[in-house]
């Protein structure tokens, strides 16, 4: 199978890669671009661990073809912090112990940030439904929901 050249923007930087037509964006990010922050928990869009932003919307990168990144803007967990300054969600996840094993954390942070950009003041119910596609097996979600709400409040007052 021939590879296809793709030009895209990842975390604000232009990027070029070659990939096969049937490769997922997740495989491209992890195997070709060394961006392993997005994880494959299922490969079928059921766990959300591979969440990234594609043209301003949160997607499962396992359900996007690499070639679809042509001309698109992709944002991953690796682009969330501004240098050494963590995004409020990242910092508060640490402060409030909203992670245990941490493997679902990149996907949850990406998804939560997407929600707060759309809805800066979600109810717990809205937040829980928004994050329903991000499975976490360690925390029971409680500290995740609380941390996102703390971050949302801080971001609203900033």
């Amino acid at each position, binding site marked *: *199978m021939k590879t*296809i050249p793709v030009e895209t923007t990842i975390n604000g930087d232009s990027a070029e890669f070659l990939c*096969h*037509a*049937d490769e*997922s964006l997740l495989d491209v990010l992890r195997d070709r671009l060394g961006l392993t922050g997005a994880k494959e928990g299922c*490969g*079928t*869009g*059921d766990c*959300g661990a591979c*969440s990234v932003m*594609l043209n301003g*919307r*949160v*997607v*499962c990168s*396992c*359900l*996007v*073809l690499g*070639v*679809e990144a042509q001309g698109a803007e992709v944002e991953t967990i690796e682009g969330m912090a501004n240098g050494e300054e963590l995004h409020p969600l990242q910092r508060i996840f640490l402060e409030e112990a909203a992670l245990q094993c941490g493997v679902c954390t990149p996907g949850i942070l990406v*998804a939560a940030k*997407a*929600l707060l950009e759309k809805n800066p003041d979600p109810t717990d119910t809205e937040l829980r*439904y*928004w*994050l*329903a*596609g*991000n499975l976490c097996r360690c925390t029971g979600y409680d500290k995740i929901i609380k941390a996102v709400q703390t971050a949302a409040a801080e971001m609203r007052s900033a």
Partner: protein
Amino acid sequence: MRYVKPQSFEAAATLLHEEAGIARILAGGTDVLVQLKAEMVEPDLMVDLKHLPGMREIVAEDGGFRVGAAVSGAEMGEHAALKAMWPGVVEGVELIGSSQVQSRATMAGNLCTGSPAGDSVPAMVTAGAVARVQGPDGVRDVPVVDIPTGPGKNSLAKGEFITSILLPARPDTASDAYLRFIPRTEMDIAVSSAAVSLELDSDGVVTAAHVAVGAVAPTVLLVQDAGVALVGSKLDDAAIAGLVAAVEAACNPITDKRGTIEFRTKTAGVLAKRAAHIAYARAGGQA
């Protein structure tokens, strides 16, 4: 697998028509990529149409809305006028998958994939939605109810694909609702589902009613008798009993890992009843 982005609908139709191997259309990708991963299908050709004119647009047309085939569930949910006119259709689309899936999944993809459990299909059927189909020989309009023909199957010919779906105009005193049953609160395939679309007169009496159920037969079913049971009523107990009886009678489900025949039949009736009450209230009716 080859990946192609044709320059026109006509070119896409020709390409699909002439493909000797297995061809798939990439809309939201939320089904086809899962099938790829599971090695259920290995297409020779993947055709991406999202960039073609109108594919990602919602436009007003004849008092209703034409929704491009690549419009995502999230985009439909953000369209206030569409949501006000067909809340049941939009809530059905919005129930497909997670926030992540909502960014990609489409009504047209949900229809063409042919699942009897597709969340957007029952309300499209009760809304009388019409799909615009492009084929090698041109364009035709097909009622949505006629598209699915069985699990994983549809009535489109080789080379044909949907470019948009028209949700027609409706009177002011009308509305719709969609409900599904799933074991969790999110992330599941419907075990049973029901959509109800109602039109009322100024006294709140139902003048027209359409009821469709999902996941209880090889395709989504439009249950004519169930609609008939509601017409002329204000959803009194007798009318609702008639609705439930008609829905249960129409169900022809299977027992599988997601539910039993009895469970699907019983809950389809319950959901139709509940959806009818929601649609009635939305249409301005007061019981």
